[in-house]
């Protein structure tokens, strides 16, 4: 217990220092598809674009269908899972959103900012499920990745 307390103090202090030392990037800021994602340039990219358009018009069902079709064609795309996670959050289904974000993370390229954004998505999904501890852990993962930048 004492050990955990000491660790928390140390962690808070180091995070504060890190925050002062460098300008933190907001992991929630919108970011693009990683260039190495297999979706890029593939036939499924068209379906993703159609999903984006459908989402902009608030046609969430259609957007979901486009994304599922795209995933069938490009199942190794981390970006498609990220998009599906975000869509499920919008549809108020944080449990599925979390799983989809975890899948996105498993397939993610080694880009700390992108991975951090995924952890942030997981944190949001967990928080919406009432899992505050899990959300804090996910946020911490995101912070650690951002510090690695």
């Amino acid at each position, binding site marked *: 217990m004492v*050990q955990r307390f000491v660790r928390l103090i140390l962690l808070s202090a180091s995070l504060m220092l890190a925050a002062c030392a460098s300008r933190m990037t907001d992991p929630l800021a919108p970011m693009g598809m990683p260039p190495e994602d297999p979706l890029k340039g593939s036939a499924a990219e068209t379906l993703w674009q159609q999903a984006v358009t459908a989402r902009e018009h608030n046609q969430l069902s*259609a957007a979901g*269908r486009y994304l599922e079709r795209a995933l069938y064609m490009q199942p190794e795309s981390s970006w498609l899972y990220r998009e599906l996670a975000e869509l499920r959050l919008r549809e108020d289904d944080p449990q599925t959103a979390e799983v989809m974000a975890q899948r996105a993370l*498993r397939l993610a390229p080694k880009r700390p900012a992108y991975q951090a954004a995924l952890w942030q998505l997981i944190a949001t999904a967990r928080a919406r499920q009432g899992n505050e501890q899990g959300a*804090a852990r996910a946020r911490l993962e995101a912070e650690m990745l951002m510090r690695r930048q």
Partner: protein
Amino acid sequence: MAAGIRWRRLLWQLLLVGLVISLLGLAWLDARIRQRFDNHQWQLPARVYARPVELYSGREMTGQNLDQLLSLLRYRPDSAAREPGSYARFDGGVLLHTRGFRDSDGGEPAQLVRLRIDGPRIGKLTDGSGRPVPVARLEPLQIGSIHPGHSEDRVLVKLEEVPPLLVHMLMATEDRGFHEHHGISIRGLMRAVFANLRAGEMEQGGSTLTQQLVKNFWLTRERTLSRKLVEIPMALLLELHYSKAQILETYLNEVYLGQDGGRAIHGMGLGAQFYFGRPLAELEPHQFAMLIGLLKGPSYYDPRRHPERARQRRDIVLQAAASQGLLDEKVLSHFRNKALDVVPKGGSALYAFPHFIDLVRRQLARDYPPHILASEGLIIHSTLDVLAQLVAEQKLSDFLTPHKELNGAVIITAPDQGDVLALVGDKSPRSAGFNRALDAQRPIGSLAKPAVVLAALQQPAKFHLGSVVTDGPFEVRMEDGQVWQPKNFDNQSLGAMAVTDALAQSRNQAIARLGLDAGLGEVIRTFQKLGVQSRIPPYPSIFLGSLNLSPFETAVMYQTIATGGQRTPLRSITDVLDRHGQPLARYPVRPEQVIDPEPAYLLQWALRQAMTQGTGRYAVAQLPEKLVVAGKTGTSDGQRDAWFAGFSGSHLALVWLGRDDNGDTGFTGSSGPLRIWTSIMAALPQRPMRLAPPTGVELVWLDPDGERLSGKGCDGAREYPLMTASIPQQTSACGKVQSVPGGIRKWFKGLFD
């Protein structure tokens, strides 16, 4: 004189009363006609469609696959693919004119696509003018309709979609003065009598189309005088209120054209599908003639049961069309010489996959009451992959042909989506009998062992894949006094071995001991987490599969393993649309992380070892080297059931073999189902399973006893993936022990655990 006046007055009174009664009767009939016609909702059963096939450059598809699809969808060759549902071959490719369809993403228009097949893939995909097309879809194959008990079925057609020739031929045969009369036709009646006398048989009916509609719509089929008396005023009233076009469209959708068990075939739209397997717009004149000919007696002129009689009737209709100038002599002769071209009843895709439709029906029943399914015309998009289904059927049948006493079941899923791609519940896949895939409850044998290992791996401080267990005899005294003594299949005991080997070699005694050490309750909870909903008996014999599950429920369990601990309910439906193609409901993928990714990954790794070094070696030897797969064999006591469940990155397949009399199959999981599984996986487009460990799992070298870190090349040392919590603190004297990353992560985790 006075009597004469009295009689006349009485007569007038009677006439007046008669007139009043007639007027009242007419008013009543009028109300009845308008009420029914204005408020009529066609009864349309739900239709189930297979997954639409996506066409895009790079998709795995052989020329044979494409031919299979075109044949199932009944595309016809045409030199320029002018009409939807036709295709043309050109040098090294195919020009398709797709039919288009509605979907929850808006669907697909009918369009021309040109594709080339390069080896096992689609090479280039362009439109009719050569511009690249990123993705196109073939319309989905209708694989069934949901019509509980006796009900009407039809495919609604709009008048403007009906080929004009069909309408003209119909009038030439049934009612030449349709556009002139007002519901009844004295001239038509006389002409029909005359024509029939001349032909020596009933070539033309005396009733107008309007009268026929009245009969079908409002009256019984009995030929009584009272019905005739009502029919005429009703026909006149119908014509008074509604246009010829409305009457004709209703007629075309209402007519009765045959019977299919409890399903009555109504309307030209469904008639075309039922007899010729194509949409009405794609039929040829001789097929129009057959449909029109059937109006006179669908049973008597049934082209499947009475082809000769049907052909004569068809030719009479063709002749009637020619006599009206609709076909010239040359065309008439051409179509008279054509065969009936009726598709065999069993050959239609509507009846091809009864066991999959059974699954769809059960899943739909959770959300829709039977009367909605029978009447609302719902469009159901299912997950069935027709090509995968045909592969599963073929491979099961190939294996079972020499073994008449055996039967089997196959389920193929896409693990990430939880989609059921194929489901075979009988070695005769077209028979709608006992659905073994869903309803056979059988002991799962060694397919249970992964749950035991997983229960142990979820306790990383106590167990890991290198932990040593003893494969040796022991006994457990149960509460009821019975003694359980697990034995190995070969009646031998191999002594101390790693958990990985115990699973890979399917050692009963070692796994049973591991189960006891991990805890019976933990094992039961693990089964439940994996998705088993059936009651699990609280006895240690479940470690070795004394647990009755259906192949489907077992597939659910392996689905969770294949997805790295994400329980994904198996779905057979993706979307439900209303009769106009508007989306009603989506059935999205809804996985749930029920097992932590780390132990789930370790189990996958161990099941991979079962394929490379254990009971699944046959598959690895047969499949392409790059195709990484994992799986487990299972054999129940007395070889009454033989199983195999395994997965790649893209497919999970489960195969069960057994006998309906519960006798000895003569096969183990390795010698039977594994062979079928391998041939199925080899025939499907595949993606290897992912081998990269998740965060929190490290590859380490361990001593043979599994209790100390070792180095590569040290005597008996083996490399295992281990959860950080399982990594031993002690190191052996041999070799250079690698540094174990993850310490910092462990430190951070300590903040929250």
